[in-house]
Structures are given as C-alpha cells and as structure tokens.
C-alpha cells in the first residue's frame, strides 16, 4: 500500500554516477576552483570544471566526447580538486569512473594508449608475480607501445645503482592473486 | 439442619479436588506465592497451601472480588446503550481450605450486601459458593477470634468443616444443605465418624483478651474522644492494606473505563483509610485527618454494624495487623479501648 519515493524513470548517467561513486554532478556550481588548482588542466582538452559542466548537460554528445577524451587519462589523481572544492565533489573518483567506462566501452582516446598500456602492463605484472616487477613492466610496456628507445639511456645507470632487479620476485600466493583477477567481473568479461 | 460427622482420609484429598474439578467446579484455595498466600483457583491438591496459618488475603474475593464488572455500555450518536452483566452467568464455586474466620466473615458481608436494596452481584456469587473450611490447629499472637465471638473451630458460614484429628484422618462436619449436596460427590471417600471425637482437642488455643460487648459500648461512647483516636493513629500512614485483606470490609467504588466508543463500569474495593474516601466535590472533607479515618474504621466495625446490622464487623483474624506496614495492631487498640474506665 505504501509507495515510497522510488525512481520510476530509467537511470540517467548522472544517476548511475551518483549510485556508483556518490558524486552528485549537479552539486557543481562551476566556480572553477578545481581547474584553477589542477596541475594538468593546461594539458587537458576539458579542464575538470568543464568536465562537470559537460556532464551536467546530460547531452550524449558531450558524454561521448568525454569518454573519448584525453582528459580523463591525464588526471593524475592528485586530489587537489577535491581538496579545494567548496562542494566536496570527488572528481578523482569521477575520473576513475569515466576511465573505467571509457575502457569498457572501448572508447579510449588513441593518445591514451601509452597510459593504458602502462596500466595494463602494471596489472599484468601483478597478475603474474603478485607484485610489480619493474623491469618486466618496462619491457612489457615497450612491447605494447613500441616505444623501444624510451628511457634506454637511464636503465644501465639504474641497474648500477641497484634500482633494477634483473629477476622478478614471485610471491608464494601468486595463484591467489591470479584468482583475485579471475573473480573480477571485467576479467570474466574479457575486458581486463 | 443437624450436622453430620464423617471421616475422610488425608490421602483422599487429591481425589476430592479431582472430583470437584471433574464436575466443572472452580476450586478456590490458598496458594503460596513467595511470602504471601493468595486465594486462587487451583487444579490439584498440590497447589494448595494447607499448612499455612492464614492466607494473606481473605476469602471474600469469592463473592466480592477486587475488580468486578457490573455493566458494559456503548456510546453512539443515538445515545448510550447498556448491557448489564448476566447474573446467572456466575459459576458454582468451591472455596476450599479457608479458615473459620474467613467463612464467618461472610456473615458480616451477607448483612451488609443483604440490606435493601440487595446487592445481587454479591448475593448471587455467595449463593453459588460452597465453603469448606479447615479449623485452626495453631494461632499466632495476632489472632483474637475468640474475643469477637468466633473460634478456631467456629463453623459459622462454613458448609463443611474439616478438622485434622490424626496424621491420616480428617473429621468432616457437614453443616448445611449445600454441604450435604457437595459431600455427596465424595460420599464414597467418607466413613462414619465414631462418636466421642472431641474436636476441641485438635484446635488452637486462642485467649479471650477483651469483652466485645464492653468494647462496643465504649467505642460508641468514644466518638468525641479525639485524643484517643489521634494517639492510636499517629503511626497510621493511611494506606488501604488493612481494609483490602479484611474478610469483612465491604466498601467499594465504581469506576468507568472507556474509550470513545465503548465502556465498562467496574466495582472496585475502596478503603475508608484513604484520604480521598470522603472528599466532597466542594473541597470539604468531613474526615480531614487520619485519626478521623481510623475512628471511622473502628466505629464502623464496632459501633455502627452492631447497631444497625446486629453483627460485629470483625472476625478477629488479625490480617489487618499482620499486613499493616507500620504495625497498627487492632487487637492492642481494641484492648486499650476495652480498658477505658
């Protein structure tokens, strides 16, 4: 008998964001303090405050632009925006969300390839050894990106300074780690 | 009627209760509840506390309970509709194991409720009660039944009286028609009592401490002796414990309980010891202080009832004194009244 206040309309993207990250897009009143403090805003095609504005429009075109943007991959999660936001909007979480959405929808910006490749190599390393194997990571990353010559000069010096392990360290429970990866939904769907 | 004497075996008491129950009679008997002994409905002999001197409360509740519905009513737009309680609905009840003072207490109640207009609630219930009293083998210092015309083997008010005459045997006195009728239910358990059983040998020794007629006279004459009543009642804190355990106190109050639609009228015990008992709507209270209320209590039992109903309103059971939180000892007070010269 008692119909409580529940949503009867299908969820919009902003509803989904609110559900999954707690971020309420419409809280933003466009003061721009996030963009002002963002260390990488100058490199982004859409500074954080503009990202918020684009999402506020709920215009699929804008959302599409964002998913395909470099912006979401450039965010370094330094959390300066959140720290200074007068409305305490968790933009870093929102960026995580957008990255994951972009990645799953296979809409990632071509220029972000290197960044994603790095992340993937990173995760592969963990999946394989349980920890980050830096040398392996670099090699794997280079294989993925083809940036064979990048940082070549630095490696020998690092090696000398004892900063590069020639062999990976395997943890005992690395099967357990692999099991974790296998249980993650994305992995099941072949998206990771 | 001529009383009949029979013998019953102690070992047959359980059967007795079974018989009563199987006939559908509710049996009210003394039941131990911690330190107090209530008169309550029982199912088996095991529940009954036969070894106690006296139940905390008297047996009067069988015919005059602490809460009694007298009327149902309905409130409607058209007015109030009453549904009186069906007097025929009361059940035949057996009061079992009460003391002679309990049984004789009904004498006072009969007199009060039997006055015109007769109180049918009490009378009907009383009429449907059969009383099996147990005479008293022991007494304590609060007992003074013999001073008010009763005694540990007094049969007044009892339909049957049981007296233990040995470890195994009970002397059964069949005293009334009702008693006869009831005893028919267990006639097979009874044997003829030999002649020459001296019942008094098995009774407690309760000394007479005052002359009741003298007390009645002096009480009546002391109405204006304010110092006497004040002196006696300084300790009294004005609760109703004495009245509510008394086998003869019959004051009551009516209260309606209702919601916006329905209601009931209840009859409840009341006590002349309460300060509001005589409070008038005007604000005036003819018995303004406790000494006047105490005087009322004594005079009611020892002056007004003898004068108007020809009975003394006290059975000497001493319950009031035992229950009193501040040790108002009625025996002591009556004795001192009796000693007035």
């Amino acid at each position: 008998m008692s119909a409580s206040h529940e949503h009867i309309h299908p969820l919009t993207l902003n509803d989904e964001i609110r559900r999954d990250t707690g971020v309420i897009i419409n809280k933003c009143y466009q003061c721009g303090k996030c963009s002002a403090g963002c260390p990488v805003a100058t490199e982004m095609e859409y500074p954080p405050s503009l990202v918020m504005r684009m999402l506020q429009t709920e215009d699929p075109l804008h959302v599409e632009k964002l998913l395909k943007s470099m912006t979401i991959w450039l965010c370094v999660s330094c959390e300066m925006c959140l720290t200074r936001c007068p409305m305490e909007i968790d933009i870093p979480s929102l960026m995580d969300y957008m990255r994951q959405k972009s990645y799953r929808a296979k809409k990632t910006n071509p220029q972000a390839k290197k960044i994603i490749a790095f992340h993937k190599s990173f995760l592969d390393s963990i999946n394989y050894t349980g920890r980050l194997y830096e040398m392996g990571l670099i090699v794997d990353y280079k294989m993925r990106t083809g940036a064979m010559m990048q940082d070549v000069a630095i490696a020998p010096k690092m090696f000398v300074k004892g900063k590069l392990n020639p062999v990976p360290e395997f943890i005992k429970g690395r099967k357990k780690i692999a099991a974790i990866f296998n249980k993650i939904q994305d992995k099941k769907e072949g998206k990771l | 009627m001529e009383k009949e004497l029979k013998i019953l075996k102690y070992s047959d008491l359980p059967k007795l209760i079974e018989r009563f129950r199987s006939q559908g009679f509710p049996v009210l008997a003394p039941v131990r509840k911690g330190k107090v002994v209530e008169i309550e409905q029982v199912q088996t002999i095991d529940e009954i506390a036969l070894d106690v001197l006296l139940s905390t409360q008297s047996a009067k509740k069988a015919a005059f309970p602490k809460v009694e519905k007298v009327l149902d009513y309905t409130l409607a737009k058209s007015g109030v509709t009453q549904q009186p309680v069906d007097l025929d609905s009361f059940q035949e009840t057996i009061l079992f194991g009460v003391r002679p003072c309990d049984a004789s207490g009904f004498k006072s109640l009969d007199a009060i409720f039997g006055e015109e207009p007769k109180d049918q609630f009490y009378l009907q219930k009383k009429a449907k009660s059969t009383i099996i009293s147990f005479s008293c083998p022991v007494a304590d210092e609060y007992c003074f039944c013999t001073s008010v015309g009763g005694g540990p083997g007094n049969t007044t008010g009892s339909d049957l009286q049981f007296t233990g005459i040995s470890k195994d045997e009970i002397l059964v006195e069949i005293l009334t028609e009702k008693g006869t009728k009831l005893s028919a239910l267990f006639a097979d358990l009874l044997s003829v009592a030999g002649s020459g059983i001296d019942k008094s040998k098995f009774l407690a020794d309760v000394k007479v401490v005052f002359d009741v007629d003298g007390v009645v006279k002096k009480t009546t004459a002391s109405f204006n002796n304010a110092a006497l009543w004040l002196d006696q009642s300084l300790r009294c804190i004005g609760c109703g414990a004495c009245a509510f355990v008394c086998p003869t106190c019959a004051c009551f109050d009516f209260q309606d309980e209702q919601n916006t639609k329905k209601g009931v009228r209840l009859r409840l015990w009341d006590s002349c010891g309460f300060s509001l008992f005589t409070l008038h709507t005007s604000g005036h209270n003819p018995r303004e202080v406790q000494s006047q209320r105490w005087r009322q209590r004594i005079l009611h039992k020892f002056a007004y009832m003898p004068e108007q109903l020809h009975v003394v309103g006290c059975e000497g059971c001493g319950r009031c004194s035992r229950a009193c939180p501040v040790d108002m000892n009625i025996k002591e007070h009556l004795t001192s009244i009796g000693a007035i010269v």
Partner: protein
Amino acid sequence: MQEFEPKIVAFVCNWCTYAGADLTGTSRIKYSANVKIIRFPCTGRIDFMILMKAFENGADGIIVSGCHPNDCHYSTGNFHARRRWIVFRNLLNFTGIDTERIQFSWVSAAEGFKWADVVNNTVKKIKEIGPYENYKKIAVSTLFNEEGASNE
C-alpha cells in the same frame, strides 16, 4: 492472509516535526498511511503516560519526534524531553516493555525527507516484529468482551 497493518501513533512537536511532516506533504514525498500524528506544542509537553495510553489503546508502535537539540522553539523543551526519554526507556526495558516499538527522532521543519524515512522505517520495523500482543492482552478493549463479565 491479509498483511498486518500496524497502528502507529506519532507524537510530534508543532514547530519542527509537525512542520517537517507538512514539508513532506508539500514535497509530495510518499509514506505509509499507518502513522497518524498527534500535535503537541513541544516534545517537552509529551508526558510519558501518553505513550502508555497509546499502547493501551492498541498502538503497535509509537513515534516521538521533535526539534533537534538546540533548535527547540522554546529553547529547552526537547532537552528536558530527551532526559525524560532516557529514563523512561530504561524503565520500560526493565519492565519488559518493547522499546523497539518506540522510535524517538529529531526531525526539523526542513527535513521532509527524513520524516518520510522515519515513518517508513518505523512501519517496516513494526511490520517485521508484528502486533504488540503482550500489551494487547491487557489493553482497554479486553474489558469489552461480548460475553459479559469477566470478573477478575
């Protein structure tokens, strides 16, 4: 079998919760119809006996709600009420009365949503724990049996 519809009475103060419930209405937020409000000037006015009367008349649950601390229209009524409820709740627990059935809350005139939540959650809880049988056995209505007298 028909679903158990509990009877719940809400004793609320005029200035905060009553106004908050007004706001729930103005905002068209839906809530369960089981709860009915009785208005008081202040939670300070709500005598503990009022709660007992509600159970005696057949309530399955009770809501008592007023202004948040420091927001009392009369500045301190709710503070006194709070002390009263702390003690009364202790006593009810000790006598075996089901304090789960009494929901105390602070709902301000601005908390239309909260009022709906308080009501819905209370209704849900009372539905889960069922009718207050213990109290119904001694309720006023037990005196009104059709058969007539039940003496004692």
